[in-house]
């Protein structure tokens, strides 16, 4: 009766094949979308640039970091990287919410494609956008006095760690986007999560100046842990523990929100 079935005995291999090719196709589609909305990429880079200038030249002089023996800019840059990728991750959710609203997700779900590729393609394209944003931020940072005190390899590892974190945050907002199903709502829902994550952290200041109760949160939350890891890779000092904590957070966030997003996508 199922003679019409296009799937033969090599079903398993075929399915693994389409998981990869469909993910590539969807990445291509999302990259085209990004390239054709350059204003999104521009705004995604202007904001962190403003942060660099603001904290370097406006607030920087008033901020003291106890126990940090290098110029403030070297403390600041890993924080700006994190701020840029965390805020940038909202775009993952906004993009998925738009796809939902336009009925594109419906079309994709009616095609014989790997369902995972809709999410993987989106987060992968966003990873590429983040790579571009971080590279630009590095250039801006170096131009205003940011220096590496370890070596090129450690710095590259730091950038890699930040990009992994960016990828995990994309999955958080993929889930937010799928749940809200509306670009504005996704954006509105994102800020209350982001502001405390980014500012009650080690991104711009030392947590030692915060009240006791806030310190507990600020020290242990993922944004701080990742920034600490990246900062250690840039300036040296004890590194391994920070990096391991950061990697654990990244793995946990990716697993939890990856699973939640896939679950939500299936019943979208």
């Amino acid at each position, binding site marked *: 009766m199922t003679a*019409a079935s296009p799937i033969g005995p090599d079903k398993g291999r075929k399915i693994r094949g389409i998981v990869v*090719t469909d993910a590539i196709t*969807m990445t291509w589609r999302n990259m085209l979308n990004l390239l054709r909305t350059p204003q999104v990429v521009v705004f995604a880079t202007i904001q962190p640039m403003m942060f660099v200038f603001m904290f370097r030249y406006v607030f920087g002089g008033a901020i003291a970091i106890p126990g940090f023996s290098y110029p403030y800019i070297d403390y600041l840059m890993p924080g700006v990287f994190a701020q840029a990728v965390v805020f940038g991750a909202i775009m993952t959710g906004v993009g998925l919410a738009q796809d939902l609203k336009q009925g594109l997700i419906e079309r994709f779900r009616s*095609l014989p*494609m790997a369902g995972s590729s809709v999410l993987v393609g989106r987060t992968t394209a966003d990873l590429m956008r983040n790579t571009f944003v971080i590279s630009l931020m590095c250039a801006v940072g170096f131009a205003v006095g940011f220096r590496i005190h370890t070596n090129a390899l450690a710095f590259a590892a730091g950038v890699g760690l930040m990009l992994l974190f960016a990828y995990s945050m994309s999955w958080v907002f993929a889930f937010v986007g799928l749940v809200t199903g509306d670009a504005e709502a996704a954006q509105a829902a994102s800020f209350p999560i982001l502001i405390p994550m980014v500012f009650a952290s080690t991104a711009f200041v030392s947590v030692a100046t915060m009240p006791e109760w806030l310190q507990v949160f600020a020290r242990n939350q993922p944004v701080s842990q990742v920034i600490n890891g990246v900062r250690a890779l840039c300036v040296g000092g004890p590194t391994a523990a920070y990096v391991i904590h950061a990697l654990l957070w990244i793995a946990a966030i990716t697993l939890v929100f990856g699973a939640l997003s896939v679950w939500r996508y299936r019943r979208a």
Partner: protein
Amino acid sequence: MPADAAIRAEHLGKQFGEVVALDDVSLEVPAGSVLGLLGPNGAGKTTAVRILTTLLRPDRGMATVLGLDVTKHAQEVRASIGLAGQYAAVDEKLTGHENLQLVGRLTHLAKAEIARRSDELLERFQLTDAADRTVQTYSGGMRRRLDLAASLVHRPPVLFLDEPTTGLDPQSRIEMWAILEELVGGGTTLLLTTQYLEEADRLADRIVVIDSGSVIAEGTSVELKAHLASTVIEVGLHDVESATRTAELLASLGSPAANGMLVSLATDDGARSMVDVVRHLDAAGVEPATISLREPTLDDVFLALTGRASRPETAPDGGGRRKRRFRREQDGNAS
């Protein structure tokens, strides 16, 4: 199971929380034919299509496409169907050509086939000139044509169209009909939902009318019309109040329905009833603007079956089960 049913649904039921979107829908579409699924907003048309296209799992009942169960063999079903929806599901930032390429790649066609197929479809749907422009520059009619083209890239033998002409201007609608007629001529099995009777009348071999999630009538358009009555008397009034009053006056002659300034009365004996109508109007001193006899349209059938657009007390007892509770919000929730 007869092998010739390309689409078959048996007692489909689907509930969203408290809202019953589908109560009991069974239908069958023979291969190569066109079924028009007709119903008002919220009748459950979209929900039925979403189940048949594997987007939604039914709570009750089962459905097959080309003999494959839509829940158990969803991925195989997807390879043989095309879906074009009420809202053109094309990527605004991609060009027309890229949109077709995207679907071609996601349906795993060979590279050369994708190129050939997208050129062919762009030409057929008069989009060749716009092929390299992003969709955001397209008109509504162009988007809808592209959406339909996208659903055809992998040559699906079974096509589902959810209100393909809703929101289109009359010119684009007529163009769309011509395209669909050509498609059907090529042997594609088509299930089409619509609110427009003219559309069902023109395109569908058979029509299933659903209301409040249940099938209330089915047959060919001729059968449905015959089921109603042989003639319709239409009285045009000068204002809505006299139309309402006229409908009340004529209630003794049958089941008149007032729709704006127009009152229609279905009857088996046109000439005789016409005399009665005139007599009633004259006795009550009502002055009609126009009065005419005409063949029933699908609109009359629809009105008779669903009671839509007619006042409750004059609504004819059209033989359908009526469960109107959740009518309004249904499609909104379902889509």
